[in-house]
């Protein structure tokens, strides 16, 4: 029986819209228009459990709450209600270049990124060569990152991420960026990590090539969990839904009253 490594129970995240809230003048202005709140649910009562060795796809269109779910599971964001519990370290392959600085060299970025992902001084020293080899960046490693192509940055980030000891690995739709050969290598590596007993969570809005990595899929829409099941069934239902323009822009469970309080 595989061990549960992530448990998400009835998690909700509420966001206040505050794009106009940043300057003092606007704050004072807002004081006088109390009562009209722009709060919305980024996640609304999400529950699921996932075990070691599983590959789970998180499907959903833009704004469905996929990244919020990732943040909550990584521990960056505390849910407003519900609980998230994980076993061991959560590794995340972030959107391209997050945490990288263009003026630093590849080597400096690699080390900083590795430390951020939780490697100790010793881990970095021991794994540096292996990371560099996997990335296929070679002599370019001492060039400033601003001279790197998008594919090279991805290779660097991915190589560090797969060398971190973690029990949960979250990948935020980045695999498509590299060239075909490297993408293949990544998929192979990710599959091996899963088979070694990691929980793999692959966040995406497209249903392409899901079956290879994931056996299960969770579909989010407007912060709600629509469907959780075998990847083929969920992907098919999601594709149907996305093809229908009348349904995809509506919050499904909010047929009557609006969700925002």
């Amino acid at each position, binding site marked *: 029986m595989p*061990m*549960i*490594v992530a*448990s998400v129970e009835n998690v909700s995240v509420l*966001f*206040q819209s*505050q794009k106009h809230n*940043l*300057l*003092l003048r606007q*704050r004072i202005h807002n004081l006088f228009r109390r009562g009209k709140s722009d709060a919305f649910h980024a996640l609304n009562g999400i529950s699921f459990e996932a075990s*070691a*060795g599983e590959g789970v796809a998180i499907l959903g269109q833009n704004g469905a709450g996929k990244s919020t779910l*990732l*943040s909550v*599971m*990584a*521990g*960056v*964001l505390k849910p407003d209600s519900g*609980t*998230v*519990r*994980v*076993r*061991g*370290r*959560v590794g*995340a392959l*972030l*959107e391209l270049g*997050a*945490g*990288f*600085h263009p*003026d*630093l060299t590849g080597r*400096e970025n690699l*080390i*900083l990124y590795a*430390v*951020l*992902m*939780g*490697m*100790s*001084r010793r881990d970095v020293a*021991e*794994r540096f060569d*292996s990371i560099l080899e996997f990335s296929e960046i070679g002599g370019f490693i001492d060039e*400033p990152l601003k001279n790197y192509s998008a594919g090279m940055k991805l290779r660097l980030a991915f190589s560090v991420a*797969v*060398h971190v*000891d*973690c*029990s949960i690995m979250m990948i935020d739709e980045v695999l498509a960026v590299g060239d075909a050969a490297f993408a293949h290598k990544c998929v192979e590596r990710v599959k091996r*990590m899963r088979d*070694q*007993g*990691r929980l793999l969570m692959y966040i995406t809005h497209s249903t392409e090539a899901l079956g290879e990595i994931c056996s299960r899929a969770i579909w989010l829409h407007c912060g709600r969990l629509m469907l959780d099941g075998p990847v083929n069934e969920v992907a098919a239902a999601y594709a149907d839904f996305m093809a229908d323009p009348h349904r995809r822009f509506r919050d499904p469970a909010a047929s009557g009253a609006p969700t925002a309080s």
Partner: protein
Amino acid sequence: MVQTNSAATDTLPPLTSPGWVGDTRFLLWQIVLKDFRVRYRNMSLGILWSVLNPMVMIVLLTFIFTQVFVSKTPNYPLVILTGLIPFNFFTLAWSSSTTSLMDNSSLFKRIPIRTEIIPIAVVLANLMHLVVQLGLLIVIGLYYGVYPTWYWLWLPLLWGLELLCIMGLGLATSALHILVRDVRYVVESVNTVMFWLVPIFYTFAMVPDRFKDLYQYNPVSALVLASRLVILEHRHPPETLLWKLALVSVVSFFLGLAIFRRLQSRFYSYM
């Protein structure tokens, strides 16, 4: 291929709420290095600026206060330098730590590191300036016949307290700056006021008696006062001055930390 990822399920800890697992001290050091490198990478003169900048100020202030407003203070350039070094460090470290969270938001947006590390690391990264400027102080001191003495052993304690104070201020303002983006301009204005309120181009003796007590509660002034006693007059800093500096610094640090922790949970939605 090397098997770096040993089977992940061997010994798994119990289910807990997610958080950062790693080497905090190594991370702090790496962020210090990062800040330092990023600051100087694209300058052709690099760290030399921390010598040139005070040199310009010394020449300027010496000219004004020996030629225009005539001051009878001996070793005047050295007096200015002992005032300028604490002031420069304070303003640079505080203003750079104020914007540090904003500048490094990509570091903690997706990874649950202890965010306190960032403003603290940026304050520490400015220590490199301090080392260079203290070198300048020693060189200029030798020129005027002022040599390092055992009294200089007070300096690490004094600077340690000053660091604590700036970290507290930096923690508070960096967190506030995430919520209200004009905080950095408030900090800049305070720094401008400080240039006149801290005895840089004048001495403590010129300050009217009724303000002297108040001056000692300003941590930058207190540091300038103590440094001048130690470096220029070879005297121990008075105990009351040390207590005041320690009080202000410790209160500032813990108050800053409390404000930071209070606001921390709101960072995510403001990024």
